[in-house]
């Protein structure tokens, strides 16, 4: 389970990347920490539309805290998902809805990976994180 401290770690790790190759390797490393979804969870309803790779995202609000499970068939996207989930980990839905997720994402130094076609997918993911 990710916690806010890890979010700071992830942010620092990504911000320290000085080249596209370093960011690539950092995302690959992050991707390995993402628990994979079972085939049963990879339903059409859980699929986020508009992503270049397939992305599934499940939110579960338990005792006020929003728990998020996600997966992708692309490794770099799994790394991105780890970073995104860390931003909202341990928070309630109203907390998450009050966050400027786009601004938080912009601080992660991932712009070279979030190209225009992929950005649409990322925005759809951010949207899901904030949906009731």
């Amino acid at each position, binding site marked *: 389970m990710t916690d806010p401290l890890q979010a700071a770690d992830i942010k620092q790790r990504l911000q320290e990347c000085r080249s596209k*190759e370093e960011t690539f390797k950092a995302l*690959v490393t992050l991707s390995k920490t993402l628990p994979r979804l079972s085939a049963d969870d990879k339903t059409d309803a859980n699929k986020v539309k508009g992503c270049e790779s397939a992305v599934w995202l499940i939110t579960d609000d338990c005792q006020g805290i929003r728990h998020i499970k996600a997966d992708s*068939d692309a*490794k770099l996207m799994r790394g991105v998902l780890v970073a995104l989930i860390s931003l909202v980990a341990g928070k309630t839905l109203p907390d998450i809805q009050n966050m400027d997720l786009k601004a938080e994402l912009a601080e992660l130094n991932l712009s070279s*990976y979030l190209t225009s076609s992929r950005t649409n997918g990322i925005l759809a993911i951010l949207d899901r994180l904030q949906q009731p």
Partner: protein
Amino acid sequence: MVFDSALLRPMFPILAQTAYEHPLIYLDNAATTQKPLAVLDAIQTYYRTGNANVHRGAHFLSDRATSHFENARTVVAEFLKAPEQSHVIWTKGATEAINMVAYGLEHVLEKGDEILITSLEHHANLVPWQQLAFRTGARLRVVPLTSSGEWEEEFAHYFTDRTRIFAATHISNAIGCTTPLSTMLALAKQQGAFTLVDGAQAVAHYPVDVSELDCDFYVFSGHKMYGPTGIGVLYGKQHALEVLMPYQTGGEMVRHVSYQATEFNVLPFRLEAGTPNIEGAIGLAAACDFLSEQNRPALLAWEQSLANHVYTRLKKYGGIDLYSPEKNTTLVSFSVPNIHVIDLNAYLDSQGIAVRAGSHCAHPLMAQLGVTGTLRASFACYNTLEEADRFCDALFDAMEILGDD
């Protein structure tokens, strides 16, 4: 090898730069090629010395612009071995040219007629026909490939007496194989069908002779053959072009207009409404000249040898599913089981290497191959053996990094 790509590189200034601190390696030529100085200069010269609207206004610059513009049409006609320069219609690109034909032939189709395409088609040579079928009640049929990506042996029965239109690509953009055009065009003609060939992937590499092909229409885009974007060509036989209803009307394409009626102009103007893309036509003619000045068989042999070199290295390395032919192609299309092509693409990009990852605007073909997408490295005359090797090395590095779980 008599051909030396290093001699051509100074003609392409864009290639002499770095990407993410690596020398730029451009292997996305099937998407668009880079432009030689001759093309850039032709466009600059047009605006510096010859800019005016064409076919109107009898003044010095207008005459000069009209003469350069119509000369460009002649250059393209000769490039295609078209019998008449009036058979060359300027379009925005191959996509617009196909749409012009799909709309222009709507009036000849009846419910139950058949439009036949092949499994290799780019969406540009599929969706316009599908939508035409929806509008007219015609039926879209597809000459299939086998599961191994070969043509079915018996495809003649797809050509029936209901086949009104047969449209096929010359070369597949996604997997680089060649369509057996002469056989298929002959079958289509036996049934009296209109025939269209999508030459977008052919013109940069192969000499095209529309008279020998004997198709009714041949289309291509300038930007895939060293020319500018936004210009393309619809070649057609006289009678075929005359059958087309103009899908755009307006100025330039008319002879006389009253409030009651309009008399259309003759070919080629009848199908060219509005002020044309003059700089594009002039740039495209410069690209044709650039190619014609080269030893084209040597260029093609070089591009094919690069593709074959990469194919051989990938095959030898193992664990890679190859979809393009081993030989006689200028691109390599492949996927790596359990590694997403966009991850491979991202690593290659981080090394300054430009390729294309995805479905290549050919969703049905990808479905037939059983993949969501492939990685495509496509070669042009300016690519070097060193670039081909650096691509392979970087790909193997990517597989190492990405394939560990």
